[in-house]
């Protein structure tokens, strides 16, 4: 642990420098996250003509829909990872063996790599967050203390995404490639996370399925906190469930990774 803390500053520095080197790619990746805006256009146009009622009985008009999807964009920038693609590539190419030689668990170096991309993504996300607040119209009498839960919820969301990526990435050792599994995960994420519509608008039976899946805790829950559309007691329960998922997926990652490394033979390494 102490060794890790000593290594951490240089790891972060190297990772950040790498991200700066590929800043154009990163910027384009951020700009290519257009889906929240595509959805915003749809939902605004529906909300202009039809009264939509959210989970707390609040009206979701065009302004609230704009709020919601701006929040989705910001949260998506914070809770994203690409460890699964990285791991698939390195396992196939055999370059994972280089990482294994280092006196540091590859899992930690993947995590740090992901973390160092954050500052650049925030360069785009923070102005959007500013617009979010400038638009005003957050509900009167809303529970502003929900903002205090946000850092913990964002961390939890990010860890769920990261562990999911690492678990699926580890599977590549067994199957040769797990990119397709990742695609199925992404499709489910789209539907059940609140990425395409506020989850309150789901039919009840689907909402209860979504409640036990990890996806809404990645994105939908932090978005609900940011848009202040939860009651405090519900928020605390959701936070608890979120961290249960963090622990569960973290353990799964540890298990799959240990089994995977034992099986891994560097091809041509």
């Amino acid at each position, binding site marked *: 642990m102490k060794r890790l803390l000593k290594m951490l500053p240089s790891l972060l520095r190297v990772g950040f420098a790498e991200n700066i080197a590929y800043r154009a790619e990163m910027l384009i990746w951020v700009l290519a996250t257009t889906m929240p805006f595509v959805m915003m256009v749809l939902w605004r146009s529906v909300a202009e003509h039809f009264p939509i009622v959210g989970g707390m009985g609040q009206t979701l008009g065009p302004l609230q829909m704009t709020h919601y999807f701006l929040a989705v964009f910001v949260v998506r920038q914070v809770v994203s990872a690409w460890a699964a693609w990285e791991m698939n590539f390195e396992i196939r190419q055999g370059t994972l063996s280089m990482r294994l030689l280092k006196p540091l668990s590859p899992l930690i170096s993947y995590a740090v790599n992901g973390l160092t991309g954050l500052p650049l993504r925030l360069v785009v996300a923070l102005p959007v967050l500013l617009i979010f607040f400038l638009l005003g119209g957050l509900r009167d009498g809303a529970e502003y203390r929900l903002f205090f839960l946000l850092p913990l919820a964002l961390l939890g969301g990010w860890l769920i995404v990261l562990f999911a990526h690492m678990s699926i990435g580890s599977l590549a050792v067994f199957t040769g490639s797990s990119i397709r599994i990742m695609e*199925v995960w992404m499709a489910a994420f789209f539907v059940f996370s609140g990425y*395409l*519509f506020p989850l309150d608008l789901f039919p009840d039976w689907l909402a209860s399925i979504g409640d036990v899946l990890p996806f809404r805790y990645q994105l939908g829950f932090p978005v609900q906190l940011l848009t202040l559309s939860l009651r405090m007691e519900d928020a605390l329960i959701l936070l608890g469930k979120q961290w249960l998922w963090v622990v569960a997926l973290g353990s799964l990652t540890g298990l799959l990774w240990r089994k995977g490394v034992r099986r891994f033979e560097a091809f041509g390494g």
Partner: protein
Amino acid sequence: MSGVLRLLGASMWRYFKLLGIQLKASLLLSMQYRADFFIDAVISLFWAATAIAPLWVVYGDKVQGKIPGWSLGEAMLVVGCFVFLQTVLDGAIQPSLQTVVEHIRKGTLDFVLLKPADAQFLVSTARFQPWKASSFLASLVIFAVAFARLGFWPSLGNWAQGALLLLLAVVLLYSLWIWVVSAAFIVVKVDNLTFLLSSVFDIGRWPSSVFRGILRWVFTFVIPTALMTTFPAKALLGVLSWAELGLAVVCTVIFAVVSRWVWLRSIRRYTSASS
């Protein structure tokens, strides 16, 4: 005159045969990964479901809303066109043009330019991914469900019009991609740019009536997603006016001609990396 025609015919026939050869090469390559067909089919159904899900929620019991001017079945036709075009993009346009970008970066485009056939034709048909065709099935399923909901079947004329407009849409999409690839001659690392353009194409998911004012204009003429998905859906519904049909034809011709011109200019600029 007849000589010119015969010459034209002969060269068409030659390109037709070349297309066959290129297709066969891609097919042989894909045959090595046969199992992928089934996996791709399942995954494309998943993605088609995510394309439909927002509509299903909009028109569902909780919201009971609608996109102004469009019933659920009609809006599903637009999504069907979108899924269809995305398939063409992922299966035929994107893989080929990705190889051009590689060629430019490595300087191996010389070998393509040396061949005794049109370079744009060769690079555009360089690589197909036949297994992506499985998501054509997904778009057919969407069309079938949409028409079942609407409770009618388009007339033969409407089918023809819809098919023509989808064909125009493919040409439009291809022309846009040629522009992006031509940018590769200048900025070299462009694979991200094609990624960006495919996310802009996502806007074609919805009928163009969700846009207001300037945006509607932009998505008709600048990035013509309205022409690509809303117009074919209208044609299938039999509500496309002749003026709109004419607009689609004219726009497509302009885009195609300009993209050919841009390509030729870019080729002239190309200085191979090796010499």
